[in-house]
């Protein structure tokens, strides 16, 4: 009998296997149940295509979306259009990464109590954007394709993230059969999901590389005769600038000077700076993963290296990512990483509150400060400080050539140097022509709206 009874050891093996499995699942539950619970097939949290994610408001409490019972957007059609790409549409064409990311918080899920709630009280997501700024920005684009972003480089709050074209989710146009091209790429959120040819705003990257690597750069002068022959190719400038200092070269956006700087710095240094400054990286926050930019000098000829330093060749930047770089210049080399979700309110305490995180140090504080001064010089001497009364705006414009016969994209990026309104911004208008002429007035309107929104908060 002893022999037989000792063989019951296999029962212990089976029991151990069962307990191990249960333990593994329990651990799995604690790590993954917040994903499981918002699974798109769940009738507990979904109505049709959309998550029943409670209420969503802007930073000042303006209701943007109420999905506690069905799905109703704001009553203001302009606001509906201006926020649709952040909130998602009704039919699943446009998703909302930020609401999906916090879905488990929004539906009131907790690992202990599941979805159980005695009172059925809904939770409220408070976004960092301002409804008023969104509307102003959308109106400023006036139907032209493009994007506008503004964020606080000290706290990371995104005040404005607008993309165009858009439409009213309660009054959806016939996008499929549209022949005018007015809705091309309407399902994209251009601010996060696209990369643009930057044009001359990229000269800021070249400038940082120059400031950090060429000791006497501020004493240097450049000579521009309108063109520069290099390696059998011609770099064409936007004018004949004559003799220029470095500061004047940036202000006049002299292609010859920046082409020469790029070649002098060399492909390794230029590539290293594009990477270090985050141009080629994706930014990840609040469920958003931005498109990565591009900077590729693999096998490039000297003339191509020159063009890459001017923001042409194969250069691409993502607007949101580039806006953060503006923040870093403003903030001494390091900026807050942006975020869209301020907090999730539910019950007595907030279920989630955003915390500010920072980028790595992207550049020397000295280089950042020098470049900021140069960008201020741009505004004062070139774009006109009158565009931004009362605001100490520093900026760089760009006119991104897309090819023969196509009107270039207008680009404009910069920041406000002000402790109370530490805002970095980017404006891109597709086929907008001249950067500063098209974009500076838009930036002015939007920044004023932002400052007003911040003033209202006290």
């Amino acid at each position, binding site marked *: *009998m*002893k*022999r*037989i*009874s*000792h*063989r*019951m050891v*296999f*029962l*212990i093996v*089976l*029991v151990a*296997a*069962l*307990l191990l*499995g*249960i333990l*593994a*699942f*329990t651990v*799995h*539950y604690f790590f993954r*149940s*917040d994903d*499981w*619970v918002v*699974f*798109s*097939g*769940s*009738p*507990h949290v979904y109505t049709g295509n959309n998550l029943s994610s409670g209420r969503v408001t802007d930073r000042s409490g303006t209701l943007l979306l109420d999905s506690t019972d069905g799905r109703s957007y704001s009553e203001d059609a302009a606001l509906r259009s201006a926020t649709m790409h952040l909130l998602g549409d009704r039919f699943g064409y446009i998703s909302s990464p930020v609401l999906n990311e916090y879905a488990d918080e929004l539906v009131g*899920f*907790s*690992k*202990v*109590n*599941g*979805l*159980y709630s*005695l009172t059925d009280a809904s939770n409220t997501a408070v976004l960092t954007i301002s409804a008023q700024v969104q509307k102003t920005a959308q109106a400023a684009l006036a139907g032209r394709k493009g994007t506008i972003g503004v964020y606080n480089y000290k706290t990371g709050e995104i005040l404005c993230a607008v993309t165009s074209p858009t439409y009213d989710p309660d009054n959806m146009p016939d996008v499929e059969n549209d022949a005018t091209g007015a809705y091309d790429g309407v399902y994209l959120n251009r601010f996060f999901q696209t990369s643009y040819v930057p044009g001359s705003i990229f000269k800021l990257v070249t400038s940082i590389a120059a400031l950090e690597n060429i000791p006497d750069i501020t004493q240097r002068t450049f000579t521009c005769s309108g063109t520069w022959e290099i390696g059998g190719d011609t770099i064409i400038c936007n004018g004949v600038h004559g003799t220029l200092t470095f500061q004047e070269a940036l202000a006049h956006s002299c292609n010859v000077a920046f082409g020469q700087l790029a070649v002098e710095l060399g492909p390794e240094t230029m590539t290293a700076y594009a990477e270090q400054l985050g141009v080629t990286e994706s930014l990840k926050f609040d469920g958003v993963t931005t498109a990565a930019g591009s900077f590729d000098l693999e096998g490039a000829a000297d003339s191509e290296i020159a063009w890459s330093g001017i923001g042409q060749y194969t250069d691409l930047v993502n607007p949101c990512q580039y806006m953060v770089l503006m923040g870093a210049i403003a903030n001494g080399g390091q900026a807050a990483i942006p975020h869209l979700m301020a907090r999730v309110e539910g019950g007595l305490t907030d279920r989630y509150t955003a915390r500010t995180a920072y980028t790595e140090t992207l550049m020397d504080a000295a280089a950042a400060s020098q470049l900021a001064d140069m960008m201020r010089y741009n505004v004062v001497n070139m774009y006109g400080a009158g565009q931004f009364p009362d605001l100490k705006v520093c900026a760089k414009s760009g006119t991104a050539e897309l090819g023969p016969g196509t009107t270039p994209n207008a680009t404009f990026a910069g920041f406000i140097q002000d402790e109370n309104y530490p805002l970095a911004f980017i404006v891109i208008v597709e086929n907008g022509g001249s950067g500063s002429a098209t974009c500076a007035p838009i930036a002015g309107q939007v920044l004023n709206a932002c400052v007003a929104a911040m003033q209202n908060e006290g």
Partner: protein
Amino acid sequence: MSQFFESLSALAQSAGLADLTGAALRYLFPLLALLILGRCARSLLLFQKEPEVWAWLSGPGGARLAVTHWETLLGRAKTCDVVLDYPTISRTHAVLTRYDDGSWTISDVGSKGGIQVNGESTSMAAVDFGDRIALGGVEFQLVPITKEQEVIQASVRTRAGDEIRPGVTLFFLTVFQILTAFQLMLRAEEPLPIGSAFLILTGIQWAFFLFMRILRRTGFEVESIAFFLTTLDLAVIASDDPSELRKQLVCIAAGLMVFLIICWALRDLERAKKLRYVAAAGGLALLAINLLFGVEQYGARNWIYIGGISFQPSELVKLCFIFVGASTLQRIMTKRNMFLFIAYSALICGCLVLMSDFGTALIFFVAFLVIAYMRSGSFATIALIVTATGFGGVLALRFKPYILNRFSAWGHVWENALTTGYQQTRAMMCIASGGLFGLGIGEGWLKYVAASDTDLVFAFVSEEWGLIMAILMVLAVVCLAAFVARSASVGRSSFYTISACAAAAILLIQTMLNVFGTVDLLPLTGVTFPFVSNGGSSMIACWGLLAFIKGADTRQNASVAVKLPPRKEMEER
């Protein structure tokens, strides 16, 4: 009675009573369950393992060795029950067997020196007290224990139910049942059938308890665990489809009958041994009927319909299989080959594969491995069998690739959420929705998914009762298996030990396949969770398996499967 129910539901509608009581009960239920299972587990797992002494073996020089089992292996090896360290005695020499009527036999199990009883060489002979037994020339005598010793021994052994009263446990279980029924009735459109179903269950369980008391059996933990799981079963059905309550109650009653019949069969080992042949034939007959008249449902042809009642014969074959597989020590030691048993197992597994009931085939295969190992003790043999079967399986998959499709979603259910992973993803979503304490009984959504009350019952309970309750449900099964493992060393006959281990193994494997299939740790095979899944045949089979576990309960006055001395003798002490 019905007036009371009507007023209850009226009250619920007016005041949101169901919401309020639900809020409190969702924390109370796990506590009650823990209390009930804790009491059962403490009682089952912490008893004193005092061996029973059935006789003495007196050897040369007056040495007295205790014979503590009904089947005792004698020999020189350390692993023998009674170690006789004499050079002429073989390593395993003889098996001494006690019978129900108190008679003894001794049989040679391949010794060199042979056996002589009262001077006559024999390979197997009856032995009376006082007979001279020579093993390899060394003489022993079998000495009876006195009545006095027997009574002292009985008083020393842990008497079942002395420390932790099963009646009190049952009282807690009754509270659990009343609250469950109450909560379900507040939600239900027709509360009456639900209320009466729970009333009947509680009634059956107390009647059964009292019946056991009349039979002087005081151990009720194993049954309490089964009744606890059965309560969850009724709650699942009441939430999913109350019209099936009546059928399930009938099957619970039938299960109890099967439980008693098998207990009765096990009380007399000679009777049990004879029943093996009936069971073998019965098992084959059931499967033959199934193959001839089987109807396909959910991909497996394992259902038959008799007069509108559906039935799964393969569930009952499990009971037959254990009867066939269990064996006495004397038989194991003399007839070492298991050819017949292997052939029988292969036949049964073959039939199940023909019905494409792979889940059940897997259960039988594991049960077979368990029994084969218990009988042979040889890992090499088991490894050989597993390898051979593995090769067969690979070949089968190669020639019948459609079988693979059943397992294609395994580990990738979230990528196949609309097709092959549909059930598992919904199950996990519902487990998460329920959290640790559940959404409330009757409040789940999983009931709208196919087979949620059988294959996905772990998730069903988890959604409505919470993950804690679902895990307690698994621990209840673990508790039964742990009890079998603990009792093995004081088992009387290897027949009981092997059958109890096999039954516990089947319960464990079913639990594993069911739970792990639901949460995508294993492919979903459609196996029932013991006692909890909705299913009549499965319920009956589970009570049958429980009888084998009960048969291993050798605590004083614990089991109906173990005979007691006549009442008169008990009273004398």
